[in-house]
């Protein structure tokens, strides 16, 4: 059964009714279990679950230490290009936005890489908008080949590709893929993606699986909180991660929780996700999928991120710039994708992590 078929099974499921029916006893029952069903997940995501945050936190904290130890994997994002042919109403890079567009040449990429390695970071995430003519596969391949010389892990967060194309990039040195569905609710997906290839819901939802099938070592999924109804979106995100984890046991799966942010082109989120919701969902993910990673970006503020260390987070971006390049001084500014709310330098983040009793991990493995 494909993940699309799994989602379709819930087409007539009355989420509102179910969430309203969750009793305190249901939550207590769920918290007693070690192996959670998707009904247990729904219980934890419900409004009733809000009354049990501390109990969830204690269990989530214990599970995270049990399966991940007290370690936080660090990575740094590098935007190679912000050209984009899609019109997504929530995104700073939308083709309709008149921002300064820029694409790094290979020489510029190398300059950025040199600058970044000074921070000690060894895992890099490269990002582009969707513009295959501007950043064709050959360009991406060259960029990855180059960056593989500087970093021990290269992940990509770029336009969705076919299995064959992922294999090409894997050969060049890519080992991880981040791809967010943005919104699992089909109707809202249609509403927020007005033009461009990204309109293809089915292709996008199958992309994480394409990544796994091409042999990539790590797949990171997520929904963009603020678009779809938050509890439903959290539910489908976790189901998606579980589907991939169950089907591809040789692939590391992790979940991100990006929340819509002010730079995202004046767009007002349809659904507000406050800190309490965020924490509740993060912990529900941890309890439902104890061994799946949880990635937190610098969209979230410093203090908040530090709290999340104790609640289930396992990967942090650090010292991030969300404009194209941005690490090496070039004088060329370009539009950012989202506002950064944790402006600490890599060194500052490292020392905070250590002070909280965690070990920052720069290099987890080498790509052979």
């Amino acid at each position, binding site marked *: 059964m494909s993940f699309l078929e799994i989602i379709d099974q819930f087409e007539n499921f009355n989420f509102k009714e179910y969430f309203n029916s969750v009793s305190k006893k249901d939550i207590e029952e769920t918290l007693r279990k070690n*192996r959670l069903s998707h009904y247990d997940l729904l219980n934890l995501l419900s409004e009733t679950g809000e009354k049990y945050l501390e109990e969830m936190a204690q269990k989530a904290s214990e599970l995270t230490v049990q399966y991940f130890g007290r370690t936080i994997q660090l990575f740094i994002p590098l935007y190679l290009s912000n050209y984009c042919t899609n019109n997504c109403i929530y995104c700073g890079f939308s083709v309709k936005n008149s921002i300064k567009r820029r694409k790094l040449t290979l020489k510029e990429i190398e300059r950025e890489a040199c600058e970044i390695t000074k921070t000690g970071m060894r895992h890099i995430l490269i990002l582009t908008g969707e513009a295959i003519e501007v950043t064709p596969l050959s360009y991406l391949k060259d960029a990855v080949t180059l960056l593989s010389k500087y970093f021990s892990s290269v992940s990509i967060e770029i336009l969705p590709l076919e299995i064959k194309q992922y294999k090409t990039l894997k050969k060049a040195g890519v080992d991880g893929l981040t791809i967010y569905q943005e919104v699992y609710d089909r109707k809202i997906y249609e509403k927020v993606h007005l033009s461009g290839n990204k309109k293809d819901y089915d292709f996008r939802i199958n992309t994480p699986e394409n990544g796994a099938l091409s042999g990539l070592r790590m797949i990171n999924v997520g929904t963009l909180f603020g678009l779809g109804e938050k509890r439903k979106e959290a539910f489908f995100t976790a189901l998606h991660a579980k589907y991939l984890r169950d089907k591809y046991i040789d692939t590391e799966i992790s979940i991100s929780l990006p929340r819509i942010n002010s730079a995202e082109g004046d767009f007002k989120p349809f659904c507000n996700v406050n800190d309490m919701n965020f924490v509740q969902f993060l912990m529900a993910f941890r309890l439902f999928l104890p061994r799946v990673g949880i990635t937190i970006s610098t969209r979230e503020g410093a203090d908040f991120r530090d*709290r999340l260390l104790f609640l289930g987070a396992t990967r942090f971006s650090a010292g991030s710039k969300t404009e194209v390049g941005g690490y090496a001084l070039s004088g060329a500014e370009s539009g950012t994708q989202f506002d950064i709310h944790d402006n600490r330098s890599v060194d500052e983040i490292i020392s905070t992590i250590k002070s909280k009793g965690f070990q920052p991990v720069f290099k987890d493995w080498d790509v052979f």
Partner: protein
Amino acid sequence: MSSDLFKLGEKTFKSRLLTGTGKFASKSFIPKMLKSSKSEIITIALRRIDFNSKTENIIDFIPDDITLLPNTSGARTAGEAVRIARIAREAGCGNFVKIEVITDMKYLMPDNHETLMATEILAKEGFIVLPYILPDLVTAKKLEDAGACAIMPLGSAIGSNRGIKTKEIIEILIENCTMPIIIDAGIGRPSHAAEAMEMGADAVLVNTAIASAKDPESMGKAFSLAVCAGRMAYLSDMGRQGKSASASSPLTGFLR
């Protein structure tokens, strides 16, 4: 629990207790045991005849409505297991086969690698393949891909009656495999069988414990009741013992 049928290959069974024909003091116990235990699947082996002794055909002791599960015991390689399976089918035993390939003569642990190779061949030939393995998730996943119809992880060494020593690994298989899990080997007491079913196993295979009992007929019934009890407990979704609240500092106070 009349709706809780056990689907295996193309057949459906009421009983989740598989039995074996080995080690009985007398073969005459077998039909009585089958009746008292309500087991519907029984294993048999294939051997060269002994010219010097009277050959009793084990099949004569098994009622026609029982599904035969020939096992490839004696095979030391995938090739030998495949040959035995084909012979058994040709001889009229049906499509089911339990692949047992043992090269370790000390502990009688199965050879997962040879078992996988035999499964790949026999599944393509239309056999309902039940491989007997040392529990291992990677092997189990490969067996699923190869077309096995169930996985038979051992609970502990054959004949040891030590119970389910491989419990944690089997729990991983139960959680991650889509095919039925039939725990085989090492189940020495009805309580072990109940435990296996409480864990979420789909069925158990018990041979030595029943065959070597003073009263195999009663022991068969005891195992049957234990399997039902364990299964019923599992289906009623037993709540696990909650851990007492740990007195550590609050983690979500900052949200209020």
